[in-house]
């Protein structure tokens, strides 16, 4: 073997060794790695990518680092669906999750707890768990708490007060008939009454959820969530009511292809730019609408009212549909993770979160810090509701939830019947 080929062999061996080292390096990587000198790095994934939220979390991370020498907090914001459906499931399945991350209640939480991915929080930060009261219930499985919501709100109509005035509507609708009347008046005035982002499926599905919530008794809702029992007639009735409502043609043109939140042509964009009078959407919508206007400000004309009651319906008239965002720690996260969560949930941070106008805080004493009129109205609606039903697709888990949403959109597009929705849900539940 001559010298050149020897050195070549050595170089090759080195290269191969490096490749192997790099590959095996992938397996360890980030995630609560404790350095030799006791330094701790916390990774924190959240869904704040726009508006005032990212700045709040960045500040919180910096303050926590300052209070805890040797702790580094690496916080990153990801687009919500990306985070929920791809990044976190993959990171958890790969055994290399972030330490602190967004935890969605309902079906997903149940799966994650069954796989022992999450840290039980009751013994670690009991005061923080109790500080939010009953709002924490959706983040509990079998009486144990695995996540704590930092914001929680209910769904209602975000409307354009100027357009309402223009169409001669003096008061916001309080019954379904009044809502249909209002939509009719808006149509007559040449205004698109309601925008819906059916292209993203879930915004359309929320209409059906509202009808189901108002048609089904609370026990029936409970049975659906725990036993996937959809045999009650109220589930079909919800679809029939929606079908009847769709018959009044309240939505914008081409709603089947409209996205919910992206661009001026989205359902939120149509409201933001005065091209539609209202949208049924969750508590986060003010921020989304604000981000879609020309000047990036929440428009002056924006108002909020709760979903109107349906007289004579079997459901609880004061029930509301809602949801929230919460954080939890991965099972193997260092103890500092719970401390960071405790800090995020402290009254001081919750007040700043409320004041930033990003959402409704869950710690009751922080609610008074809400400066935004609309958020204050949502908070009032939340306080007035007897119980809050979690978004059905979240509560039922992705498999049943997706099938349900698909069935509802088919009804919107006149390609399915109210019975089809229930059949789809039952079929999906049967595969679980």
């Amino acid at each position: 073997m001559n010298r050149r080929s020897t050195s070549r062999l050595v170089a090759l061996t080195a290269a191969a060794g490096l490749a192997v080292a790099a590959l095996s390096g992938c397996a360890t990587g980030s995630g609560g790695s404790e350095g030799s000198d006791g330094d701790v790095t916390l990774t924190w994934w959240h869904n704040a990518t726009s508006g005032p939220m990212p700045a709040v979390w960045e500040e919180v991370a910096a303050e926590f680092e300052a209070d805890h020498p040797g702790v580094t907090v690496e916080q990153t914001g990801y687009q919500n669906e990306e985070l929920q459906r791809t990044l976190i499931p993959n990171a958890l399945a790969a055994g290399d999750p972030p330490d602190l991350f967004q935890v969605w209640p309902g079906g997903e939480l149940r799966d994650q707890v069954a796989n022992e991915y999450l840290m039980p929080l009751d013994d670690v930060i009991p005061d923080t768990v109790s500080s939010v009261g009953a709002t924490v219930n959706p983040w509990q499985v079998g009486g144990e708490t695995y996540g704590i919501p930092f914001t929680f709100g209910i769904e209602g109509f975000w409307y354009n007060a100027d357009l309402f005035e223009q169409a001669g509507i003096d008061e916001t609708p309080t019954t379904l008939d009044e809502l249909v009347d209002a939509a009719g008046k808006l149509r007559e005035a040449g205004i698109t009454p309601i925008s819906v982002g059916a292209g993203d499926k879930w915004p359309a599905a929320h209409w059906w959820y509202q009808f189901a919530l108002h048609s089904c008794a609370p026990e029936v809702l409970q049975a659906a969530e725990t036993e996937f029992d959809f045999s009650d007639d109220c589930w079909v009735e919800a679809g029939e009511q929606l079908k009847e409502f769709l018959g009044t043609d309240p939505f914008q043109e081409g709603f089947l292809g409209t996205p919910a939140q992206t661009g001026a042509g989205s359902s939120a964009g149509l409201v933001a730019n005065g091209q539609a009078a209202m949208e049924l959407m969750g508590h986060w919508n003010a921020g989304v609408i604000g981000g879609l206007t020309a000047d990036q400000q929440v428009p002056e004309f924006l108002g909020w009212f709760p979903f109107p009651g349906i007289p004579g319906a079997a459901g609880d008239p004061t029930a509301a549909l809602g949801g929230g965002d919460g954080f939890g720690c991965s099972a193997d996260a260092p103890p500092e993770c719970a401390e960071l969560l405790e800090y995020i949930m402290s009254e001081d941070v919750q007040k700043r979160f409320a004041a930033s106008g990003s959402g409704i805080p869950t710690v009751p004493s922080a609610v008074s810090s809400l400066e935004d009129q609309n958020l204050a109205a949502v908070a009032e609606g939340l306080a007035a509701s007897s119980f809050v039903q979690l978004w059905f697709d979240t509560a039922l888990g992705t498999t049943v939830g997706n099938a349900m949403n698909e069935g509802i959109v088919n009804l919107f597009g006149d390609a399915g019947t109210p019975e089809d929705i229930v059949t789809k849900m039952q079929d999906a539940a049967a595969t679980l």
Partner: protein
Amino acid sequence: MTSVIESAGPAVSAGSAPAPKPRRSRPGTGRKWAEIVLFVGPALVLFLGFVILPVVLAGVYSFYNLPQAFQWDDLADPERFVGFENYIRALTDPAFQKSVGNNFLILVLSLLIQGPLAIGIALLLNRKLRGRGALRLLIFVPYVLAEVIAGLSWKLLLQPQGGVNAMLEAVGLGAWQQNWLADPNIALWTMFAILTWKYIGFAILLMLAGLQGVPEELAEAASIDGASWWQIQRHITIPLLGPTIRIWVFLSMIGALQLFDMVWVTTRGGPLNATSTMATYMVEKGQFGGQPGFGSAVAVILFFISLVVALVYQRFALRRDLAGAITRGVR
């Protein structure tokens, strides 16, 4: 799914049988083996680990009913094993049948419309004319553009209040306005138009490259014999372009069957599954519907459909181009 294309790869290099070499002494053979192991080993490990293993695992998962975040224990659970149920469910689901139909419709339309269009434009651009370089560049730009950017742009342009409708209004064609991507009856056609815009540049580029291999002398000789430009193209250029066209057809078919990104970005398979393809159906159900087992079954079906189409095409259309390689023995 790249493995289908991989299988076409060796066709080029693995042609001739290794020529007999003079016997070497033992130490030489040992070194040869060391080199082979060193050179091929890492690549082989990567290929097996990141291509073959996932394909095999998908096959295994497809026989199980798995929860969204599943663990290895789930594979040991006899209740999770469902046999061919996932396959039966997919094949009997009207939404999946619709997706398969969409894939094949796009495949046929691509061949019937994009092919002749690309050959025609390539023939034009192969003539000497002013601004030829600029024209070639313009036609190739959409192909170079990232799928997501192009898809998002079209999504915005084709909204009911978007640029395309506004333009139609402005030039007095307001009656032609459509809900391009929101109307289930026309969304697939709109999608096909976008795909044509996006991928025809690639077809034209291939054809242009193929045209460079057609000797000019033949055309010259024909024209001396009095053949018209049309006759030259019809009887000389296009037959000699045959191998290029056949390879493009192959790539186009595989692309049509595995179509995902453009559809996902612009419509996500909607409205009402009007534009859904096998791949978007797979991701929608497997990833976003939280059913990895079912998604794997769809992936395996997609794999087999692509494989069968590819093999049948290779056997009957590409055998002359690849003679002696994969289809050894076929004459």
